[in-house]
């Protein structure tokens, strides 16, 4: 047990801190600072930030040098993540590419695919989205119906995806398709790497209960994808997905994020009156904050555990379901306390003059409902833990 970092990592941390202080816009982290309200301008800001990070060598720190990474020790990546989270700096405009698609290509891709995509993922030239769920295949992902039929050197794809986050911003989609409709459902699936400009792809944004549109429906009609864009082997896609879901479900900086949110709640409680006293003096609120603190510790330690496995060269397995499940349910409790402390004021939306912190607490509360659904519902995570960790029989 040793939760300290080696001196070279601590040195790197100082470097990152200095870089962030120099490069984050002035006023960052204060209530005065606001990102552009217009979605397009905000996106442009994020893309610009991604470029800055990339230029500094902070994107894909641990990826092999030959593919545009820095070949750094994973501990450096943790260091970087910790500081990015501490500064509440943006995580980069291409998180799906850098956190999920890239590592999956590194694990399952052929040399040509690695050369074609990895460095562009890092540079932000290729922005990725994940074409996974379908209207009839959410929790039961393996029952997906989007068909890909081989015609010469192409796969011709027809079908529909849903909950595709960032599809409206991406130029590449990581696409799960059915290549053998006669096989048992887990055995006929393949993964295609698809250029979003390919004719036949239509994206329609889905508005969420938060009022934002971070997800999309993606319609695919006679989309022709070169055979060379098959990731891994044909009909062996489930293996790829299982690997990729591990990356998707593993934490990274969940603990630090929750920690920041909790600290913010403690400040909020000190500044908000309930029954004539600061909420921070209300014993019931204190009990709730303490419980959150306990559970935030667990998320933080789960991160450490996952980092340790990663540092020892392991890959995320079914036990990442534990982290995803715990975090997602905690985050719902966590984000509901902010609204509760504020009381009726907590339910005010952005356009109200009395709104606190631009409606962040309400947004967080509503957004957190998605946490126990996306990337596999809590029910699915409990199935995985029951079956694949504890060895209980499948239902």
């Amino acid at each position, binding site marked *: 047990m040793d939760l300290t970092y080696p001196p070279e990592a601590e040195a790197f941390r100082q470097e990152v801190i200095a870089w962030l202080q120099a490069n984050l816009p002035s006023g960052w982290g204060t209530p005065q600072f606001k990102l552009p309200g217009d979605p397009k301008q905000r996106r442009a800001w994020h893309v610009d930030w991604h470029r800055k990070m990339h230029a500094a060598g902070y994107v894909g720190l641990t990826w092999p040098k030959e593919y545009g990474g820095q070949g750094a020790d994973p501990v450096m990546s943790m260091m970087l993540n910790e500081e990015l989270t501490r500064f509440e700096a943006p995580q980069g405009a291409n998180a799906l590419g850098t956190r999920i698609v890239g590592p999956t290509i590194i694990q399952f891709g052929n040399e040509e695919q690695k050369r074609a995509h990895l460095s562009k993922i890092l540079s932000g030239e290729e922005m990725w989205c994940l074409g996974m*769920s379908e209207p*009839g295949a*959410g*929790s*039961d992902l393996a*029952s997906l119906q989007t068909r890909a039929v081989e015609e010469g050197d192409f796969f011709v794809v027809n079908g529909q995806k*849903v*909950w595709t986050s960032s599809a409206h911003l991406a130029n590449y989609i990581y696409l799960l398709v059915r290549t053998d409709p006669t096989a048992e459902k887990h055995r006929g699936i393949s993964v295609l790497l698809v250029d979003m400009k390919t004719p036949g792809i239509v994206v329609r944004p*889905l*508005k*969420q*209960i938060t*009022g934002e549109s971070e*997800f999309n429906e993606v319609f695919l009609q006679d989309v022709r994808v070169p055979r060379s864009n098959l990731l891994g082997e044909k009909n062996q896609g489930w293996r790829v997905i299982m690997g990729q879901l591990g990356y998707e479900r593993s934490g990274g900086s969940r603990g630090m994020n929750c920690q920041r949110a909790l600290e913010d709640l403690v400040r909020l409680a000190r500044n*908000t*009156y*309930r*029954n*004539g*006293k600061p*909420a921070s003096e*209300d014993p*019931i*609120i204190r009990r709730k904050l303490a419980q959150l603190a306990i559970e935030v510790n667990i998320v933080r330690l789960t991160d450490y555990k996952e980092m340790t496995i990663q540092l020892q060269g392991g890959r995320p397995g079914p036990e990442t379901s534990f982290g995803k499940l715990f975090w997602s349910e905690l985050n719902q409790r966590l984000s509901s306390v902010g*609204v*509760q402390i504020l*009381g*009726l*004021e*907590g*339910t*005010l*939306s*952005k*356009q*109200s*003059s*009395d709104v606190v912190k631009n409606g962040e607490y*309400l947004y967080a*509360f*509503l957004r957190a*409902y*998605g946490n*126990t*659904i*996306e990337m596999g*519902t*809590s*029910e699915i995570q*409990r199935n995985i833990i029951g079956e694949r960790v504890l060895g209980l029989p499948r*239902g």
Partner: protein
Amino acid sequence: MFFDLTDEQKAIKKAARDMLEIECPRSYVRAMMDDARGYQPELWKKMADLGWMGLALPERYGGAGLEFLSLTGLIEEMGRFLLPGPFVSTVVGGGLTLAAAGSPVQQESILPKLVRGDLLMTLAVGTDHGRLDAGGVQNSAVRQGDGFVLNGIVRLVPDAQTADIILLAARTSQQHEEGLTLFLVDAKAPGLSVHPQYTTDGRKVANLEFSSVRVPSTAVVGRVDGAWPIIAAAQRRLTLSLCAEAVGGAGMAMEISVEYAKTRVAFGRPIGMFQAIKHKCANMLVQVESGRFLLYYAAWLLQEGASEAPEAVAVAKAWCGDSYTKVASDGIQVHGGIGMTWEHDMHLFLKRAKVIELSSGDSDYHAEHIAKELERRATAISSAR
């Protein structure tokens, strides 16, 4: 011993359900969220014509003179359909309060119009420093000549945008509970400005700002410095109205979820076949039925004027508020991704639930009142022994 609604009360509910099923589809609910007024006068008129405004108001003013429990059942149905508009503010906050505490002249001048659907009201009670007791009222009324001058801000008053008459609590002296007075204030009075705020459920609330607003002595409801018991009684009725909405809304959120669980297929079967979903639905039923029991019980005690009524209202609110949020939350989880979309209706219930949960005191607030009552009774019992 009869713990149920009467046939008449059931008939009222049934008629309301039939009417709202047609008149208050969720497209209407959504449209009213973006509407500045938050209701359509045509529907309001229909409701008035059906006698809803006057259901529990005296017959001499055109009402039906029924008990509070009948009104509770009606509001439950409104909650079921997420009916927007100032019904509770007008009828419960305004009408019933005036019927209980207003002078014959005041009643005569307001209630018949209210019953006909021609006049809207709201009760405005300050909550400074997050206080729901008398200490929350810090806006002032100072006697001047034959009348009073009102100053100060009252925040997050429901349906203040559309009210014609505001029933305002103001501080007339520094005594805690004995320093409050209720006034009837014309919403168009010079010096009164209304600043709309936007809660997530799309209902209408506003901050009222009083700048030297003058009212005559005849505007006082009850006696000067004597408003607290009137306000407390009105708040109990308002709180229970929220509970009624909550029970109705939670019931509908449950039904929608159960229906989805019957039809949505995953892993080759309807998801309602999986215990994770089936038991969630069963828990919803427990939440809803429990809330309904507490609601009817408290409403009955209120209408009987029983001494246990205040505690029963606290119990009902502590349960029904949290419970609605829980049921709507579970409803979203049962629906999965589709439940997270704006297009699906489940979030309408969730947002209404959260606003109700945090209105009129959350469950922790009411729990402390219940704890005090438990202690009081324990003292009473031990001193009786």
